[in-house]
Every structure is written in structure tokens, then in C-alpha cells.
């Protein structure tokens, strides 16, 4: 693959996104044919489109944007193609935050409690991560810190699961771990989208710093990059975007890992140039995955988070093998 021009890349991804959005509104247990589409407002199937599939599609797009841009930013910051909010424990921390509100029984007291818990978890997660790994730390320390954080958050969730007071709570917690876009409401859209937009916008301001970080920490600082500021912006941006996503869909892994990796060769590997295309491609991947889980014939709908792991695990393995081959 070689570098393609930026307008072409962004244009193609946008067209793909539009096509997939229409497919996402049409696809499911009940397929909505063109005839129903054209009969605006009168066909009863419009209710399915507007009330079930529209929120689901919008969330798919924005959650994909959040994961794609967060993954690209974290890979740029760590200078490591194997970083993403899932692997570094940010998603798990957000899930842990959400689960804690369920566990202590506050999650249902008001609609805002659980999402706020998830976001607080996400921001605490990435804050801890950046703190643990220190300022001049190596990539290795950063990734190790992320894995340890992931372990801690996951064990916290397991503990909450084990000690959950009611089967209902168990069920809810499992939903967070598996991650899904199904049965989302307009309420979820209203909550998540603004935060994802803010988070993504904050991340986009770090583009130049991520470019300079190609030359390492000392290289970037010698070029006038304020690393403290960059770290803070990344913590806030990734924390908010990932936290808001996890708050409405639970953990959806691998989108943040795989997407930047696929797009990187197309933008000439410059980390700053990767952010916007990776956000769009994240939306494409998430939407495509969500359409796929709806179309797979099974008695129970496959959860998107599970499907992504099933695809992402082998991808991860293939990446590792090709990386080893290159360095061997």
C-alpha cells in the first residue's frame, strides 16, 4: 500500500460511512426494503428506523470515532503500534467506573450517574497511566503500566461481578464487559455524542506534538513541544472520549488497535495526519461490525464487543508475527 492523497482518503471513508449508515438503518431481524424507505412517514417500519436503528447507527459512528482517534493518539504518543484504549486499560477503567455505580446501587438512581462513573473511570485510568509511566519513561514502561492497569480494572470488575447483590446486577455488569450497540436510546445518543465530540476535538489539538514525538521525547521537547501540556490534553481527550463510549456501549475492543494500523501506511505514517482518517475509519469498522452481528443468524444476537475480539484477537496475533519477522 502506498500513500494516497488526503482528500481522496477522507472522501472515500466518508462515502463508505454514508453507505454503511444506510445499510445499518436497513439491516437487522426485519430488513427494511427500498419501498418502505420511499414511503416516508407512512410505512410502519419507519418506527424501527427512527426509534431503534437511528440511535444505534449514530452511536456506532461516534463510538467508532472515539475509539479510532483515541487509538491513533495513544499509538502516536507511545510510538507503539500495539497501543489502544483497550490494551492500555483505559476502557476497563471506564467499565470499572460504570460497574461500581451499578454495584453500589446508584447506577439506577439517576440516568447520569452511570455515564459519569464511566467517564470518571476513563479519565482516572489514563491519568494513572500517564502518571505511572512518568515523563521520560520508555515505551515499554508505558505499555507495562497499561497492562497492569488493565489487570487491576478487570479484577475490580470481576470482584464486583462475584459480589454482585442480585442476578439483575450480574446481568447488567456482564453487558458492560461484553459491549454492544443494541437497544440504545436517543437518551444515550444525547449523552455520549457531545462528550465524544469534545474529547475528539481535544485529541486533534495534539497532532503537531504527536508528529514531533516521532523523534522521541527529547527530540520533541527540543522542537519546542510542551510535553506536560500534551500529556494533559491526551489524558482529558482520551479519557472523555473513551469514557463516554464505554458509558453507553461497554467495552468494544480492538477498533482502536486495528484501525490506526490499517490506515497508517495510507497517510505516510505521520501520527498527526493519522488522527482524522483513523477516526472516520473507526466509525466504518464499528458500523460494519455492528451490521455483521445483526446479520449473523443466531438465536441470541452476538455482542459487538465479543465479535470484535473474535476478529481482533487473530489480527493482533498476525501483527505480532509480522513485527517479529521484521525485527528478526
Amino acid at each position: 500500500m502506498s500513500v494516497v492523497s488526503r482528500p481522496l482518503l477522507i472522501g472515500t471513508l466518508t462515502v463508505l460511512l454514508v453507505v454503511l449508515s444506510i445499510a445499518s438503518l436497513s439491516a437487522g431481524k426485519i430488513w427494511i426494503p427500498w419501498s418502505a424507505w420511499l414511503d416516508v412517514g407512512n410505512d410502519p417500519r419507519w418506527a424501527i428506523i427512527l426509534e431503534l436503528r437511528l440511535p444505534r447507527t449514530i452511536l456506532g459512528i461516534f463510538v467508532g470515532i472515539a475509539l479510532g482517534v483515541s487509538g491513533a493518539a495513544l499509538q502516536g504518543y507511545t510510538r507503539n503500534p500495539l497501543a489502544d484504549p483497550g490494551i492500555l486499560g483505559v476502557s476497563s477503567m471506564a467499565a470499572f467506573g460504570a460497574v461500581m455505580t451499578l454495584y453500589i446501587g446508584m447506577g439506577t438512581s439517576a440516568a447520569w450517574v452511570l455515564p459519569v462513573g464511566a467517564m470518571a473511570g476513563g479519565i482516572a485510568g489514563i491519568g494513572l497511566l500517564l502518571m505511572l509511566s512518568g515523563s521520560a519513561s520508555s515505551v515499554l514502561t508505558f505499555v507495562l503500566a497499561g497492562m497492569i492497569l488493565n489487570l487491576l480494572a478487570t479484577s475490580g470488575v470481576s470482584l464486583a461481578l462475584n459480589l454482585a447483590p442480585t442476578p439483575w446486577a450480574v446481568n447488567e455488569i456482564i453487558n458492560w464487559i461484553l459491549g454492544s450497540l443494541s437497544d440504545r436510546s436517543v437518551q444515550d445518543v444525547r449523552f455520549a455524542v457531545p462528550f465524544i465530540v469534545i474529547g475528539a476535538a481535544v485529541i486533534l489539538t495534539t497532532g503537531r506534538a504527536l508528529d514531533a514525538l516521532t523523534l522521541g521525547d527529547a527530540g520533541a521537547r527540543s522542537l519546542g513541544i510542551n510535553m506536560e501540556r500534551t500529556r494533559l490534553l491526551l489524558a482529558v481527550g482520551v479519557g472523555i472520549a473513551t469514557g463516554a463510549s464505554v458509558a453507553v456501549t461497554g467495552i468494544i475492543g480492538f477498533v482502536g488497535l486495528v484501525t490506526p494500523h490499517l490506515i497508517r501506511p495510507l497517510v505516510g505514517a505521520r501520527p498527526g495526519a493519522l488522527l482524522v482518517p483513523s477516526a472516520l475509519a473507526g466509525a466504518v469498522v464499528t458500523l460494519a461490525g455492528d451490521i455483521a452481528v445483526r446479520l449473523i443468524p443466531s438465536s441470541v444476537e452476538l455482542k459487538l464487543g465479543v465479535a470484535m475480539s473474535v476478529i481482533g484477537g487473530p489480527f493482533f496475533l498476525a501483527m505480532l508475527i509480522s513485527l517479529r519477522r521484521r525485527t528478526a
Partner: protein
Amino acid sequence: MTQLAISNAFVRLGEKQVLNNVSAAFETGQVTAVVGPNGAGKSTLLTCLTGLRKPDQGQATLNGENLFKMSARQRARSIGYLPQIPEVAWAIDVRTLVGLGRTPYIGARGLSTADDTAVGAAMARANVTAFAGRSVTTLSGGERARALLARALAGEPQWLLADEPLAGLDPGHQLDAGDLFRRMAREQDCGVIVTLHDLHMALRIADRVVVLAEGRIFADDTPVKALSPDILARAYGIQSRLQEGEGGPMIEIVGRRA
């Protein structure tokens, strides 16, 4: 003429006193070579002079202004820095790499025409134009070193602080790089400070040599005086002879000091 100076600097790393009361002032229009045995504190001195490391005690100033009170961007515009082991994390092409040198100047709209001109000029001077489109990962060690040098030149800094810029270059390219440093000093009134291991190259390209050992300055003088057998014996523990060679003075290293 402007001045980059460090005074009474102490730096401690763990158990080791890396810089022990170091004072030196550098001037533009000159190439200064900092030499000394491994672990002498050369790299640390350079990072203090770039404003990347604040000494535990002491001052670093640019034209009398405290280096650590200036904004990072302002400092980056004046002082270009080439680390000893330069990292290039991604498979970017050479032109993009050199373009990173413009970071302190880039506004919200990305690289301007002026930036492009500076990048082109830097690539020409470091002799990397021929492979501008190639990915950094495919370059040989020498090509990579030149591309990184071009990156440092692209910022058009008034000061260039390069940590072992000649390591990994063949003798021909070492001479080219040395000439480039001298031209920058002469023609553009740049201040060039390089750390070197090769004492011959220090003799050849430097206007002035600072000998650093055990975190202290042993000599700060013209190359011939600073690299005298007496000073080299104390700094390196070697026995040497200064000779007149065909290309100028040269140092014959006789062996370890008896």
C-alpha cells in the same frame, strides 16, 4: 555575536556527579568541539545547553536570558538539537522527517511556502535530496544520520548542538559534515557545538575545543592547545604526540599512559 553560556552547573544522576561545577561560554561564528572520555558528562552538558535538562545548581543563559524561563517554542527556534541516539519511530519519508524540524514555526495551517523552502535548503545542504521520498526505515546508517542532520538544519537555528553527529559516518561524509558545520559558522554566524570522540576530527573542524572529564572542564582553548599531550594524559589516561601531518596537525596516540 550572541552567547550561549552555562555557569557553575552541577548535575547529579543517581550516585554519580555528572557535571561538577562546569562553566563555559560559547559564541556564534565558531565551531566548538566538546571531547572527553566515555561518561565524562558531554551529553549532559549538551542537554543543559539546549534547555532540556535543568542543572541541579547553576545557570544556563542565551544572550544573558535564563534558558529555563524562555518558552519552549522560543528556545526551539534559537537552538537546534541533535540527540546522540536519534529515534525515528514511524516509517515516515525523509522529506516528512526533515519537515519536523519546522515544528517551532508551524502555525495552525501547517507547513507554509517558507517552511517548504527551508526544508528544501536543509535537504540540499545535508545532501539528502536524492532520497527525499524514501522511507526512513530503508536508509543506511550514514543516510539516516544525514537525514537527521537535515532535520536539525531545517529549523534554521542560530545554534546547532549536535551530540556525536559524526558517529556512523564514513570518512568522506565525516569531512562533508565537518565542512558543513564550518560553513554554518562562517557564512551564517551560527554557533555550532558538537561532541566528538574522534580527536583528529576535533583538531580538523573545531575553532575551539572543550575537554571534559569526570564532570569537570580540563581545558577550554584552541584545538592544538586543548588537545596537548599533557591534557590528554590527564583526561583520557593516554600517551599521545601532536604531529604536523599533510592535512594539518594530527594526534598520534601512542598507547595507554605508562
